[in-house]
């Protein structure tokens, strides 16, 4: 693509869309967290923040939170390392934010003689990039623990680092199976591969070849490890807000808010990854590039931009549903102890995902021939 003004504008638009999507979802998740937990527990949930008497089911609470965080004292402990202490929340939140860049939110959009891939950056090893960025988040946490000059924070940082490493290993191993089935590390290719019908000789065109059908064990392992990577309940012992105090014990004001935000953004990223790898990403069942082609023979022709729009909407909806599911887990399970989570990570998720890779390899060889 020649760097014309239009090209630049399109590139900017792609990045802006992803940024806005992730930030909006992250902000909304604070509301969802309050309301969903309330509805699950027969409560009403936060509903008092109002603008001119308008309450809107408590939708203004994230706004009120932001104002509160911004106007609070930004406290710097006397013996803290000033640079690292300030840098840590930024590292956390930025690495979580940029991780979403390689996750495609739609197929190509053909408009005005251009082919625009609906993805912030096109990378042929997109999965690896997302992992690299997700694992960078642990540096922010460790920096926070170290720079606070507080032993409890340091211990919390170490717990976080141990958890993140065990989770990353399991995530990496569990998606290997997916990469093997679809034969690519490019997220776009993996999602395109999921549009094909699953086992057409048995089911015809009825079931799409989504990752959750081809790689169910990997899906469960990935979800468990992904929950761990977000450092939220049931894996929230790095922080343990109710009794053991964690890595951000010395943080206040917006810096603390940024750590909170990083957790929510990581939830969105994990939801995006789950959608892209296991739920067919932007695929709408039976929607091809030129309209619907139902397995019973009916067809509905659609213009290409409309198809692209449907795909983007499908992606957003799937991410929202996965976020809801992650919240459901978070408000159902009690917290693991440190040793339990370590045992789960290293003796449960990791060997099982390796086993899954081996089994997938055997099945693939048996199926397609060597």
């Amino acid at each position: 693509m020649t760097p014309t003004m239009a090209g630049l504008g399109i590139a900017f638009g792609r990045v802006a869309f992803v940024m806005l999507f992730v930030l909006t979802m992250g902000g909304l998740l604070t509301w969802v967290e309050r309301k969903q937990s309330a509805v699950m527990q027969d409560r009403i949930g936060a509903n008092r923040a109002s603008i001119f008497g308008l309450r809107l089911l408590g939708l203004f609470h994230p706004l009120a939170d932001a104002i509160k965080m911004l106007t609070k004292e930004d406290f710097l402990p006397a013996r803290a390392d000033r640079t690292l202490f300030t840098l840590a929340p930024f590292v956390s939140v930025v690495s979580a934010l940029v991780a979403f860049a390689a996750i495609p939110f739609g197929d190509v959009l053909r408009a005005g003689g251009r082919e625009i891939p609906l993805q912030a950056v096109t990378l042929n090893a997109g999965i690896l990039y997302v992992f690299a960025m997700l694992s960078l988040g642990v540096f922010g946490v460790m920096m926070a623990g170290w720079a606070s000059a507080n032993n409890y924070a340091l211990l919390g940082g170490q717990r976080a680092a141990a958890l993140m490493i065990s989770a990353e290993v399991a995530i990496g191993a569990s998606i290997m199976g997916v990469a093997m089935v679809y034969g690519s590390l490019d997220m776009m290719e993996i999602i395109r591969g999921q549009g094909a019908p699953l086992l057409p000789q048995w089911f015809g065109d009825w079931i799409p070849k989504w990752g959750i059908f081809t790689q169910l064990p990997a899906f469960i392992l990935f979800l468990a490890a992904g929950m761990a990577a977000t450092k939220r309940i049931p894996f929230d012992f790095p922080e343990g807000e109710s009794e053991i105090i964690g890595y951000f014990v010395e943080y206040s004001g917006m810096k603390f808010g940024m750590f909170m935000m990083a957790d929510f953004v990581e939830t969105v990223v994990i939801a995006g990854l789950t959608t892209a790898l296991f739920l067919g990403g932007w695929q709408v069942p039976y929607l091809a590039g030129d309209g619907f082609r139902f397995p019973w023979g009916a067809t509905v022709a659609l213009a290409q931009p409309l198809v692209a729009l449907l795909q983007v909407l499908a992606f957003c909806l799937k991410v929202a549903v996965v976020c809801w599911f992650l919240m459901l887990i978070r408000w159902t399970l009690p917290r693991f102890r440190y040793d339990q989570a370590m045992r789960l990570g290293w003796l449960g998720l990791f060997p099982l995902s390796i086993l899954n890779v081996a089994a997938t390899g055997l099945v693939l060889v048996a199926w397609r021939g060597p």
Partner: protein
Amino acid sequence: MKFRQRFYLAEVLIGLGVTAAHFFVNLGRHTAHHVFGRKTVPGAVTFQYPEERRPYSPRLRSLHRLVRREDGSPRCVACMMCETVCPAHCIYIVAAEHPNQDIEKYPERFDIDLGKCVFCGYCVEACPEDAIRMDTGILEFSSYSRLGMIYTKETLLALEPAGPDGTPRSPISIPPDRRP
């Protein structure tokens, strides 16, 4: 632990089923409530506190009040029983001569320091005249200063007993340092 429980996944799924069922049932009830105006089954057990109050038990010990005679003067005869029995030493009475010789005494001052009071109710038990009661139903009397927690005779005399379901009938007095 049974094998199934050790395996964990099945148990997690059962738990998720329980919470998800609560979520969808309550969501349906909220929708019926807000969208279709059907308020038979509430979707939540929440009381929207300052506007809605739970009915209090009639035995609840809430803010004290001094019982009045028919002419409005305190029924208290300043016998100091309550002051003596109070384990928190938070009642302060100054007695004065009552014009009526049969009554003998009345409290010139009757202060309760609610910042110290432990709400044991002994003062009510000890009173031979049934002159002090803890049945106003008022529980909200926080203050930004210690002085604001000291309730005087005039304030205590003005309070009314709570209604049958425990709702306060006298205005909830706001200490001066909490007035907007």
